[in-house]
């Protein structure tokens, strides 16, 4: 199997895992796409760091050809699978009761600042620890 085929298969497995197998349905959530939009920028940066310097070298016969910067497009799909599956399993284990209590969120001072800068709703409800 070429890297191209493996990468496409990886995306398919990831989508089925989220929507059908684990039913976490993260791919249908705004929180996921907002997070992915941030992660993908860093992924492209770090990929470029590694591929432009030749830390990772690809066999031209195993890849399709198009590159984003120096990285084969397949790397974007590989990264998508890894990032999505990491988040999916995090949510799934949380649902199963493994350390589900979320953090307290931003400190009040930071919350005010973020509210001022973003104008968004920074309305994270305070979480209660079981008493």
């Amino acid at each position, binding site marked *: 199997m070429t890297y191209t085929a493996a990468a496409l298969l990886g995306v398919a497995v990831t989508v089925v895992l989220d929507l059908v197998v684990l039913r976490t349905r993260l791919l249908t*959530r705004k929180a996921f796409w907002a997070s992915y939009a941030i992660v993908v920028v860093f992924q492209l940066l770090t990929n470029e760091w590694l591929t432009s310097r030749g830390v990772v070298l690809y066999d031209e016969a195993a890849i399709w050809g198009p590159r984003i910067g120096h990285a084969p497009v397949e790397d974007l799909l590989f990264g998508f699978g890894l990032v999505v599956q990491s988040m999916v399993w995090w949510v799934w284990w949380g649902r199963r009761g493994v350390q589900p*209590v979320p953090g307290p969120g931003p400190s009040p001072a930071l919350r005010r600042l973020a509210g001022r800068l973003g104008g968004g709703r920074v309305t994270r409800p305070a979480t209660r620890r079981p008493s």
Partner: protein
Amino acid sequence: MRELTYVAMLVFVLVATLPLELLLGIRVYARARRLALVLLCAGLPFALWDVAATRAGHWRFDTTQTLGVVLPGGLPLEEWMFFVVVPLASVMTLEAVRAVRGWTVGDEPAQDGQGEGR
């Protein structure tokens, strides 16, 4: 300095995401057991893909740009650490978005408070 090329990228990601834990209070490092399960369920399969792809010759590594430690599977230490650092950064970003925007991700306890705990 050349041998630090790969590890520098990993350190960059760890440093860039650390403020999320410290300032946003997302408690990802603090939930080590849940994080470990993510590494096992998501990181490991992709690391094994990496091992298989390296063996199949899809890609290889310039080990002069790594610390020189080669771990099982023929991957440099940094390549194994990639599958710790990337899942960690992914989960931290998701938790940070949730913390700042208040959007749900699907593991929220029931509204009546049942299911909370531990």
